[in-house]
């Protein structure tokens, strides 16, 4: 069964129309995102220098990306020094081949997996299955999703669209567990028993990586349940698939990320377990370690100066939890293993803006900016969304060519580029809007622009812009 990959089967508006019908999913999602959102604000408020930390996180990632070849070579040398092996994979197929070859070499019929989006991205489970090797997901939520033949709907809580009764039925059916209640505790116990046996008997494990430290060859996995520790410790062979953007130059650089990541993702001060390891450790853990460095479109993102910051992402999912579009449409609507605001910018870019369906994702946003405020590494998602809309519209998509929106976006990009143009445009808009304004809002725009106001009002432009008021105060 495939975990999804990054090629959406349908355009976002079409997929979202369907997912919007799923009331259960929306209730679960609303509950989850609201809960995590509130908790997160408290967790973030505890650290006095959150803004400085975000800046530091962004700077560190940018520094590493600006010197990426060197960092990867340093990492490679260090991993080898510590007794590990390093593989380079240009695309998903190559990465899958490396991992399946290694698993087959060890005669594995089954491998255990730590939850990892990069292996979902390359559709590793399907590739393994083709070679007759079954991948067993060991994260509770991933296991639920896998048993259900479903795909994850959230980066962090992949089974958030399922409720306890559904999960109980699933475990009864697939694990043959006798479950008297649907208490989460009882369900977790059933999974524990099933997986414990797998942990103790399986020889090959596959993981992703949250971070890797170039100078020491240290790889890091951040998790909650201990299934990660089990996979990283008990098998004989460990294979970790890591996007090349995950590397950090020095050990000291991990500090801000261990502060930013848990508070942004689960809204905790710290996640229950984090593992760091360097190569193989004699007498402790797997005695064979392989690190697969994955490109799969990342160097194209790197080459695009305007959107490069996308690669700072640490997959915390904070942007999902604050996004009004995600909250309603749900993760499945995005058709990619990367849902929500980050998915809307990352998915089309990883596909070189060549995939028609993925190219609809940058429009899956209200541009409210909440994702930018939440992002612990300050990725300016709204800016990149607008930029990608501009990129996609004229060149890539025939049916979007020269639509009103494409022209509007091109104009907007031109206007926003220079402050004087922006101010000029505001003045123009104020003068032009006169006949359209009723009670401080525009209810119906003329002509083709009417699509914009058919389901919402456009607030009228104020009599004076913020910049004008500011200047009048004598501050500029």
């Amino acid at each position: 069964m495939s975990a999804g990959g990054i090629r959406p089967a349908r355009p976002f508006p079409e997929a979202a129309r369907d997912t919007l019908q799923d009331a259960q999913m929306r209730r679960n999602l609303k509950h989850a995102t609201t809960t995590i959102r509130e908790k997160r604000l408290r967790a973030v408020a505890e650290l006095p220098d959150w803004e400085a930390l975000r800046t530091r996180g962004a700077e560190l990632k940018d520094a590493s990306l600006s010197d990426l070849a060197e960092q990867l070579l340093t990492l490679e040398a260090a991993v080898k020094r510590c007794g590990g092996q390093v593989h380079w994979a240009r695309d998903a197929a190559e990465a899958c081949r490396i991992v399946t070859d290694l698993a087959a070499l060890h005669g594995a019929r089954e491998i255990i997996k730590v939850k990892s989006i990069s292996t979902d991205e390359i559709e590793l489970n399907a590739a393994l299955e083709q070679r007759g090797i079954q991948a067993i997901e060991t994260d509770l939520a991933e296991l639920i999703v896998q048993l259900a033949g479903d795909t994850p709907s959230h980066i962090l809580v992949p089974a958030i669209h399922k409720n306890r009764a559904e999960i109980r039925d699933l475990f009864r059916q697939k694990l043959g567990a006798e479950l008297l209640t649907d208490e989460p505790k009882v369900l977790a116990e059933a999974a524990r028993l099933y997986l414990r046996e797998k942990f103790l008997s399986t020889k090959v494990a596959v993981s992703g990586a949250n971070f890797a430290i170039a100078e020491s060859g240290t790889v890091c996995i951040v998790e909650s349940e201990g299934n990660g520790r089990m996979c990283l410790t008990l098998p004989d062979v460990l294979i970790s698939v890591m996007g090349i953007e995950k590397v950090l130059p020095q050990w000291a650089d991990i500090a801000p990320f261990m502060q930013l990541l848990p508070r942004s993702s689960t809204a905790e001060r710290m996640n229950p377990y984090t593992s760091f390891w360097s190569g193989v450790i004699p007498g402790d853990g797997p005695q064979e370690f392989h690190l697969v460095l994955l490109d799969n479109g990342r160097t194209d993102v790197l080459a695009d100066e305007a959107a490069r910051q996308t690669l700072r992402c640490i997959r915390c999912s904070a942007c999902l939890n604050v996004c009004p579009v995600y909250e309603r449409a749900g993760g499945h609507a995005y058709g990619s293993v990367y849902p929500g605001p980050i998915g809307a910018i990352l998915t089309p870019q990883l596909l070189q803006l060549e995939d028609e369906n993925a190219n609809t994702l940058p429009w899956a946003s209200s541009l409210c900016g909440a994702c930018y405020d939440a992002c612990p590494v300050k990725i300016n998602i709204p800016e990149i969304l607008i930029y990608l809309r501009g990129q996609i519209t004229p060149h890539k998509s025939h049916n979007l060519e020269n639509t009103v929106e494409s022209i509007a976006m091109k104009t907007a990009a031109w206007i926003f580029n220079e402050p004087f143009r922006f101010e000029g445009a505001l003045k123009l808009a104020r003068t032009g809007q006169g006949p359209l304004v009723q009670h401080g809002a525009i209810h119906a725009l003329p002509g083709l622009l009417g699509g914009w106001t058919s389901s919402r009002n456009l607030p009228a432009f104020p009599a004076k812009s913020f910049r004008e008021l500011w200047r009048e105060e004598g501050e500029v």
Partner: protein
Amino acid sequence: MSGEARLEMLTRIHRAAAGPKLEIERPPIPASTRPRAEIVAQFAEYAAEYRAEVHRASEADLPVLLAALLSGQNVLVPEGFPAQLFPQPATHKPQTTHADLAAYDAVLTTCAVAIAETGTVVLDHGAGQGRRALTLIPDWHVCVVRSEQVVDSVPEAVAALQEAVLAGRPLTWISGPSATSDIELSRVEGVHGPRRLSIIVVD
């Protein structure tokens, strides 16, 4: 094959990176100025919030506390754990298999560093801490933390662990017992790791 991929990826990166290498400063981490007692108290409080069972003991009381806490249990004690604290004959042999480990009720270890900001204990799997499987498979982990091992912040802990990491040692950061919130976001302790974590802070 692989060499070809490596070369091509490195070429792509070189072509992609237009600008100069961004230099980044790494000023030394200033040591916390908060009073020790406050730092240690916060560590104990935060660890307890993560549902670790926290005890505090003086050096002198420690053996008594350990004996009482672990009486009647089949306890695994890694090599290098101070024998005078828990005189039960050390049961751990390096060749103990993973399945054997499951037969122990509890494992008793020291740690490398503890962090007040988050209520975390960190093992670098040196003497007294055992290889990684030891603190993973038994259902109860009892960890002795000396108050001077508690640092205030995550960056301080990272600095303190630098030597171990550069020496190639693995690290395990532990904040409370194993937990999941995957089913309707209700927190359940112990899916895979130890379901019970006891931390003994020694003053």
